[in-house]
């Protein structure tokens, strides 16, 4: 049973139903979405059950050729870290659906956006192909933009555009880095890249590390790339905010852990002080600015910046207990 693929695309399967069904009432739309997200959670429990805790490495790997001319393949799988994050995600989405029960207009499209978002988010966690990861990583921006812009607060247009452009700008560097890696090592497969990353010249590895870092630093967010976040949090609708605050930072920290540490170990050590300082600054900065906030959502946003700083600090401290703490 290809658990991972099923859990990945099950939410997406709900989208045509929601958008295409004639005369679907709001209540029915919410019910369908809730059913789909709960089912996805159930499937992810199946992943958990099939997971062998004894072995290391990726499990439940599904593979298919997609665009062989571009060397783009569909390659997904889970290991200990991503399994945990998949479970959190599939657990949070039903709650987010429930939290959106106060939205009144165009419920169908909101629900469809949430489902699409779930698929793309899960995709980033389970992708073992770097290009596939990037596709999902970027694809998340569309439903995110729609949710903030369509159902958000007063300044939602500004917040949505800011969110979209800011994170996309960061990801541009990621894209270049991924392509560069491909041209050097001739594969997008993460396992292959991780095994051969030692063959890269040291300076190259460091630049690539920075490229990956920028994208994840914007997403996390790390100070000083955080400006999109308070506005996005403040203007986002409650259900969307749940995902925005609960899941997106995890994608960024997962990216740091998986790709920055996994592909560029020497560069990670080289830059560890820099990242640690950024993280520390974020912790203090986020907390200090949070003190004077009168808007509760903004306060939560800055508090989130502070906490993500703590996670990143943990990841780059490089000791095993710390990384486990960071994942938690």
């Amino acid at each position, binding site marked *: 049973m290809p658990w991972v693929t099923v859990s990945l695309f099950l939410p997406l399967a709900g989208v045509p139903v929601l958008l295409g069904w004639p005369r679907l009432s709001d209540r029915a739309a919410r019910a369908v979405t809730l059913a789909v997200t709960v089912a996805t959670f159930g499937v992810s429990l199946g992943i958990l059950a099939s997971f062998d805790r004894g072995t290391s490495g990726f499990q439940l790997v599904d593979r298919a050729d997609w665009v062989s001319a571009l060397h783009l393949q569909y390659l997904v799988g889970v290991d200990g870290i991503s399994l945990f994050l998949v479970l959190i995600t599939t657990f949070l989405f039903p709650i987010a659906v429930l939290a959106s029960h106060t939205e009144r207009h165009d419920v169908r499209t909101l629900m469809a956006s949430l489902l699409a978002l779930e698929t793309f988010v899960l995709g980033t966690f389970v992708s073992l192909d770097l290009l596939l990861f990037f596709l999902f990583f970027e694809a998340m921006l569309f439903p995110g933009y729609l949710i903030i812009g369509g159902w958000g607060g007063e300044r939602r247009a500004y917040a949505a555009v*800011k969110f979209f452009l*800011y994170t996309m700008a960061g990801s541009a560097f990621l894209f270049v880095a991924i392509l560069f890696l491909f041209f050097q090592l001739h594969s997008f497969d993460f396992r292959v890249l991780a095994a051969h990353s030692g063959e890269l010249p040291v300076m190259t590895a460091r630049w690539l590390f920075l490229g990956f870092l920028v994208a994840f630093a914007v997403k996390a967010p790390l100070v000083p790339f*955080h400006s999109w976040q308070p506005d996005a949090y403040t203007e986002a609708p409650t259900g969307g905010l749940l995902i925005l605050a609960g899941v997106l930072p995890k994608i960024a920290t997962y990216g740091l852990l998986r790709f920055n540490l996994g592909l560029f170990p020497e560069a990670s050590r080289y830059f560890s002080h820099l990242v640690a300082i950024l993280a520390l600054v974020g912790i203090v900065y986020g907390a*200090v*600015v949070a*003190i*004077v*906030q009168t808007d509760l959502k903004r306060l939560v946003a800055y508090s989130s910046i502070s906490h993500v700083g703590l996670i990143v600090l943990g990841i780059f401290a490089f000791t095993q*207990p710390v990384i486990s*703490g960071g994942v938690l």
Partner: protein
Amino acid sequence: MLHLVGLIPLLPLLGAVVSAFYGRRLRDRAGTIASAAVGLAFLVSLLVLIGLLARDSSDRVFVQHLWTWVPVGAFNVGVDFRVDPLSIVMALVVTGVGSLIHVFSIGYMRGDPRYSRFFAQLNLFVFFMLVLVLAQNFLLLFVGWEGVGLCSYLLIGHYFERPAAASAATKAFVVTRVGDAAMLVGVALIFVHFGSLDFGRTLGDATQQCPPNISCIVGPLPSGGVFTAIALLLLAGAVGKSAQLPLQTWLPDAMEGPTPVSALIHAATMVTAGVYLVVRTHVFFEISGVALAAVLVIGLVTAVYAALSALGQDDIKRVLAYSTISQIGYMMFAAGLKAYSVAILLLVAHAFYKALLFLSTGSIMHSLDGETDLKRMGGLRHAMPITFATFVVGWLAISGVPPLSGFFAKDEILAQASQTGRTVAYAVALFAAFFSALYISRVVFIAFFGPPRHDQHPHESPRVMTTPMILLAIGAVAAGLLGISAVSGVLPRFLEPVIGKVQEGHGGPPTAVLTVISVAVSLLGIAVGWLVYGSGRIDWIALRERIRPVHQTLAHGWWFDQVYGALLVTPGKAVAAFTAYVVDRRIVDGAGNLLAQLFALAASAGRRLQTGLVRTYALAFLVGVVGVLCYLAVRF
């Protein structure tokens, strides 16, 4: 029997959960359920005590490992509870006094709109306090430590519609946080140097043959400087939690909370957590002489500071708050003298008589419609005889009149100070004792004697409130029996395997003389109190107007709040506001928006090429073709 220890914190936790989730349906019954939970926990504690007593006195350490909480490589922390004489004494105090206060609250909080929430939080507090005192490792202790801080915040802010209550709750949390942060660093240091947070491996009582002694620690010993650092950091946490100088400013304001909260949290239990911590980790303090001296000095100075400040308060609860600060100062002083069992004896006695005083105050407030201003009381002894009687017991206990418990504890501390040659400390402590008797006598004489200065009709409180008060009064009297002698008393001998014997010094005047002096000082304090406040011969209000600057200083706690406000709070808020509005909004955000505007500018400039006129496009086309032809001509 000893295996039941896990049940002790579990019962109040269940009570809290029930009250929290079914509060609306239970309404008034929430109070009974909560009291029963703590009462049952007390009974279980008694059973555990019996189990402990059944063991030989050298074998009285039992650790119950419930489950492994954090199994991350070398950092392995379990949910482990410890039964030893010290922890069981603390547990008995918390559950015993706690259950009486719960019962009192049933009557006191009747009619409160958030009745069940109050009891849920009160139960939750007892749960965390028990986790704190029963913990077998520093992490679990810290969980309890933070948990009681949280519940204190919630309960102080019970009347949150009042801005004073809301800010008092925040102040309590933030000030103790300062201490907690230092303590956390201390705990981290312990892990770094010992490789474990378990009491057995860090405090050196790994086996029965090895009494708490640093030589029993397994593995290489860290250097002396490390112990000083650890001890001082832990002390910082204790100072915050126990409201000692310089982190004492939160406690008087914490009186905004309901009086049972003041009785339980801010008199009998949470504030004594600091003393418990110091006594529990006394091994660290003894190795580092500096830290132990710090404990002594902080305790003594705080005791004097607070005793004097108590004299300047008109709000009866604030008097008791400063009194608590002062009494805990005495406990710290005792610990600094290495008389740990006497410190614990005072802790137990204080729990009884301070809770008693607070509950009696609550009784007064209950009948005077919430009045706390001493100037508006008077003559209450006729209207409220039971409350008067119990308050008198508390009064005499705190003044150190024999044979009540307060006398034994205080006398032994003073004796220890004198007999270990610390004459100056002894004199200062005696000075503080005089003022202790004085400030509490002042309250008694103003509130209960003289003509009534109010126009209300006070009445005695209902039995659900007076019964716990009476029981606490009995405790306040009887607790003295536990420690008639610092060396051979029941409590000191019971605690000896854990915290050692009180070393009897041999300097100074003999014990009998010291006892006479301390009793005389107590009686002197009462006498002066009678003269100034009770006899009616002196207009004390006019008198203090004459020494207005002195009185104002005492009334404002020697201006600590004002100094902290000017040095820390105002600049802190300014920095935060600056960072948020100038740095974040203008600079960081502005950078992003600037970038966007640059693009927009470039776009609008570029847009001008789109004139919509065909002749412009034709011209551009011509220029382009000419350019390409020139280029080709030059290249070839």
